[in-house]
């Protein structure tokens, strides 16, 4: 599972960086989205990966990471998703404004006139 997750994060990150460096605004926003997916998975993975462990301390069991999975990265991911979603939406608006004003979807928007 670790290898799979690492591969997924790597592919998402690589594809994201490649897309961000592309000249079209739509590609940039797709790249940013992929990057944020990769980052979110990465945050999730630093809490160490377990299958079938509750993110809560069970009464009676000793409160160490052998007994439960760390809930904090999950809450961090939740916050990061919300913030990333909002800022990406804002970026989309600016992207559309740029498209409307310049008539092209190039990131530098070389206006014809």
């Amino acid at each position, binding site marked *: 599972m670790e290898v799979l997750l690492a591969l997924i994060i790597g592919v998402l990150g690589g594809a994201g960086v490649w897309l961000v460096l592309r000249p079209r605004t739509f590609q940039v926003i797709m790249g940013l989205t992929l990057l944020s997916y990769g980052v979110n998975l990465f945050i999730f993975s630093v*809490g160490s990966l377990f299958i079938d462990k509750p993110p809560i301390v069970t009464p009676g069991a000793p409160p160490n990471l052998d007994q439960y999975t760390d809930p904090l990265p999950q809450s961090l991911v939740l916050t990061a998703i919300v913030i990333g979603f909002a800022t990406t939406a804002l970026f989309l608006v600016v992207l559309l404004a740029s498209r409307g004003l310049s008539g092209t979807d190039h990131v530098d928007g070389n206006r014809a006139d």
Partner: protein
Amino acid sequence: MSGRFSHLMVAPVVLPLLTCALLVLLGEDKKRLQSLVNLCSTLVGLFVAAQLLRQVAANDGTTLVYLASNWEAPFGIVLVADRLSALMLVLAGVVSVCAALYSEARWSRVGVYFHPLFQIQLMGLNGAFLTGDLFNLFVFFEVMLAASYGLQLHGSGWPRVKSGLHYIAVNLLASSLFLVGLALLYGVTGTLSMADIAAKLAAVPALDRGLLHAGAAILAVAFLVKAAIWPVNAWLVPAYTATSAPVAALFALMTKAGIYVLVRSWTLFFSDGSPSAHFGGRALLVGGLATMAFGALGTLASLRLGRIAGFSIIVSSGTLLSAFALGIPAVTSAALFYLLSATLGVSALFLLVELVERSATHAPPPADLELALELGEDTNLDDQEAPLVGKAFPISRALLGLTFLTCALLVAGLPPLSGFIAKVSLLRSVLASEAIAQVSAGTTVAAPAWWFGGLLLFAGFVTTVSFSRSGIRHFWASGERLAPRIRAVEALSVLVLIFSCVLLTVWAEPVLRFTRATASSLHSPAAYIEAVLSARPRPGPTRAEESP
């Protein structure tokens, strides 16, 4: 922390938030009332910041810790105010009052939601200065940035949208890096509280140290993008030049927020005692020096006053970063003084740029005053053979010229204002440290110190050249240009900023004493860590009943 003002610490965050809610409720059709509320709120914010500064400076330095929802440090989010935070809060207060005042005249009516966004931006800034938790810092950064995206586009138009697109893309990338960095730090240390990370760093096993350094470096890159270090600062000048004047003045604070968090976390995590002491100091120094050189060359290459102001920000960022990177308390203290002076000066300059450029573009149709004058025998004639007598020298032009001159003196660091004091104390402390290095031979501070001093003088010289050229273009060679129309509030806001620099000059000694104390506490963070980790929650009413 006790007494009547125990909840005052959260006010710099809560006050702008509530004001923003009030402003949204008031609605966009009550612009005058909104302006008034905005201004009053920033004034109250400044008062609160000053009050916090007074509390922090009392008893030879106290670190105020506020446990949000009464959770103690490593588990809950804490707000921490020490000397540095309080100083930054006051700086943000002064600049925001002036920006709010300036926007009364014109800018707040250009588009919608100016005032609410202004307050949210202020909330993000204040929160970033106060928080003691890395993830909370991320949230406040995002709050600040989200508001800044809106403010940057305020007034719309193609240049703003174009530079805004780049600005947002760069900052979204930086936010991703921020998350990666803090996730790595969390993975290594198991905590997000900055004080707790600092306390646990010594116990990090050697195997994890590489991961720790990688996380810290990635986090630093995210901060440095905001601080506009050299290879990643191409977004700054177009975005700051294109945006409206009060917003640009407020944005001058944002680069300082990046520098603040960098200094805060770097001195906490990698100060002298810890095993990875001064990690990344060399890279930071080189980056800072490169930023200074880049900013100086950019200043020289710019013709437009707005671009000069933008590059001045880069120069001041570079100066601050390399000064902090030297890691010598005396230099840090001088750099903090420079930070105050440079921020106020550049903010005033950004406000002024718009007034000067307005006189170039919005000249009213010329009145026929000269034609009414009788030409006498001995009338002096000017270049165009027109009579010089009776030409009114408008007060607005005089005001513009004088404030421009003062701003130039401030930003270039020429006597007699605070910019000069800042540069002299920077140079003195750097060269003094150089002397120390010669005594205890073997340390490597010598070459960077000389580079730093040289670049500082070069940047000052180049800025002077650039300002002289721009001043000649705008004020002496302006030909038939007529007096700009300046509202009283606009002039007042620029004058307040300049006057605060004058105050800084007059009371340089107490301020320097304060920054010296700040620097020494920054370089020995044990007191900060101790204060945060030893803060205990107050017993609630129910718990008090249970305890006996």
